[in-house]
C-alpha cells in the first residue's frame, strides 16, 4: 500500500557508487571527532604515557646490572617492547563508545545516513592514530635517554607500527565488549585480560630464565611471539624468523577481535 509514491517525501536513492565515498568520508569525520574527544579527556591519555615510561625506567634501574651480568647487554632494547606494549593497550579502547551508548549519542549517530561500519571503523582509526602517537612518544623518550637501536630509524618506525597494530588488534576486544554490553565497568574490566597476556610472557626476562610453569605459559601465549618480533627489531636486527610469527600472531588476534567487534555491532542493531 504505502510502498508507492510519496510525491513530496520520497527522495531519489543515492547511486550505488556513492556509498564507498560516503563511508570513507564518514569514517574521517568520526575519527576526527574521536581524536578531539581524546584531546579533551587528558585523564585517559596521560596515564597511557606515564605508565610505560615509568615501568621502563624503574625496570631498567633495578635490573640492568643483573641483566648485564647474565649476558644480556642491550637491556634497553630488551625492555623497550614492554614499554611500547603498555603504551598501546592503555585501557581506554571502547570507553568513548560506551559513553556514547550510555548517553544516547550513539543512537543519534545511527540515525544519520552514515554507514554502521563507519561508526566502528572511524573510532578504531582514531584509536590506531592515538596509539601510534603514544608509542612514538615512548620510543623518543627511550632513544633520547640512550637506547641504541639495532635496525635504525626504519626499524624503529617498523617497531612502532608493529606495536600499534597490536594495540589496534587488542582494542578490538574493548570495542566488542563495549558494543555487546554498553556498560563502562564491563569495558574497563578488559584491563584484567592484560594480566595473563602481558605478564605470562618473556616480558621481564628471557624464556630461559623463567620458572618451568611460566615457561610453558609463555610458549603458548601469543604475546611471547609478538614480544620476540619486537625485540628482534630493537636488539637483534631484521630477523625474519622472529618478526614473521609476530605479524602472524597480531593478524590472528586482530582477525578474531575485530570480527567480534563487528558481530557485537550487528547484534546491537537487531
Amino acid at each position: 500500500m504505502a510502498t508507492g509514491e510519496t510525491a513530496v517525501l520520497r527522495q531519489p536513492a543515492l547511486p550505488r557508487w556513492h556509498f564507498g565515498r560516503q563511508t570513507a568520508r564518514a569514517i574521517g569525520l568520526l575519527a576526527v571527532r574521536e581524536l578531539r574527544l581524546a584531546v579533551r579527556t587528558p585523564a585517559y591519555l596521560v596515564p597511557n604515557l606515564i605508565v610505560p615510561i615509568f615501568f621502563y625506567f624503574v625496570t631498567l634501574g633495578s635490573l640492568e646490572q643483573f641483566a648485564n651480568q647474565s649476558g644480556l647487554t642491550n637491556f634497553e632494547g630488551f625492555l623497550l617492547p614492554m614499554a611500547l606494549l603498555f603504551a598501546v593497550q592503555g585501557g581506554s579502547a571502547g570507553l568513548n563508545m560506551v559513553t556514547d551508548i550510555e548517553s544516547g549519542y550513539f543512537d543519534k549517530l545511527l540515525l544519520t545516513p552514515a554507514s554502521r561500519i563507519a561508526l566502528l571503523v572511524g573510532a578504531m582509526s582514531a584509536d590506531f592514530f592515538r596509539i601510534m602517537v603514544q608509542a612514538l612518544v615512548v620510543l623518543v623518550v627511550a632513544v633520547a635517554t640512550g637506547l641504541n637501536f639495532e635496525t635504525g630509524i626504519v626499524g624503529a618506525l617498523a617497531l612502532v607500527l608493529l606495536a600499534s597494530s597490536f594495540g589496534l588488534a587488542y582494542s578490538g576486544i574493548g570495542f566488542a565488549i563495549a558494543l555487546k554490553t554498553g556498560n563502562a565497568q564491563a569495558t574497563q574490566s578488559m584491563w584484567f585480560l592484560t594480566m595473563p597476556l602481558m605478564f605470562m610472557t618473556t616480558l621481564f626476562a628471557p624464556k630461559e630464565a623463567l620458572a618451568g610453569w611460566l615457561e610453558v605459559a609463555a610458549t603458548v601465549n601469543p604475546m611471547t611471539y609478538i614480544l620476540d618480533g619486537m625485540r628482534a627489531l630493537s636488539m637483534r636486527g631484521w630477523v625474519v624468523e622472529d618478526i614473521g610469527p609476530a605479524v602472524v600472531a597480531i593478524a590472528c588476534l586482530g582477525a578474531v577481535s575485530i570480527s567480534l567487534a563487528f558481530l557485537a555491532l550487528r547484534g546491537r542493531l537487531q
Partner: protein
Amino acid sequence: MPAIETEQLRREFKGGIVAVDGVNLAVDEGEVFAFLGPNGAGKTTTVRMLTTLLRPTSGRAYVAGFDVTREQHAVRRSIGVALQEAGLDALATGRELLELQGRLFGMNAGASRARAVELLELVGLTDAADRQVKTYSGGMKRRLDLASALVHRPRLLFLDEPTEGLDPASRQAVWAEVQRLNREMGMTVFLTTHYLEEADRLAGRLAIIDHGRIVAEGTPEALKAAVGADVVTVAVHRERVEDARSLLAKTDGLRDIRSDDAGLTLFVENGTQAVAQVVRLLDSAGVPVGPVAVSRPSLDEVFLKATGSRLEGAETGGGTENGNR
C-alpha cells in the same frame, strides 16, 4: 499518502516480552500526532522501530513512503529524531555537534557551518554555541537536540517524550517550537508523551497505547466526545469503595463506573443532577463522602475509559515532575 503507516507492527524482546503488539497506525502529512500512554506501554519501542533503530519482529511500517526494514537509508534521510534522553556528545560544543551532524548528512563544510549558525539562532543557543554541551542545562540540551534533528531539513519529525523532566517554562518553549515547525514549515510531527496536557495542547490527533496495543484513536475532541458523558468523581475511603460502587450503580443516567483506591469515577448523562443523587445514596447508606467533583471529560477520562486505569503520574490538567520514565 500517509507520512507514517504501520500494519500489525509487533516487537517481542528476549524472554517473550511483547512490547508492541500489532499496532496499526496512519499519520498524514502535516499532522501533529501524539502517542499517549503510560511508561512501558510500548511508545519508545514503536518510535525506535519507525526510526530504524530497532527491527520489528513482525508486521510492516512505512515512513515517508519507505519500508523501515528494507529502505532504512532512505528513511533516515527523510526524518529528524529527538530521542528521550537528548543523546548528545557532552565533550563537543553545540556548534561542533551540529556541524558534524550536517556533514554526516552529506553537507559540505561550508554548508554545515552555515546551517549550524542558523539553527543555533533558531533555538536560542548562539551565545552558548562554543561551550561544551556538558555545561548546558536540561532545557538547553533539549533545544540543541531538537536543532540537531532539524539539520538536514527533514519533513517528518519524531519526538520521544520531548519535555520529560523539563521545568514548565522550558516545556512551554518546546511546545511553541513544535507548533511553529508544524504551522510554518508544514512539518509532520510524531511525538510520544505520558503528559495529558502535552497531547491535548499539541496533537491534532492522538492514539492511546497501553500494553503494546492501541486502545483509542482520534482527535482529542472526538475522543472526549466519545466518552459521551459528564464525569463525576467521588473520593471514598479505600475500604468502602466496593460498597459505594454497588450503591452508585443505581445512579440515574449512569453510563459507566470505574473505581480505584481513591474513590469512584462515574460517567453520567447529566453531571449536576447526578451529584445530588450520589451524595444522597452514599449518605443514606452511611458511607462517608469525600470531595465530589463534576467535569466535562478530559483526556484522562478518555484514558480511564479505554484502559480501566488513570494515566500514571499525570494529574488532570497537567504533567508532573516526578521524573519517572
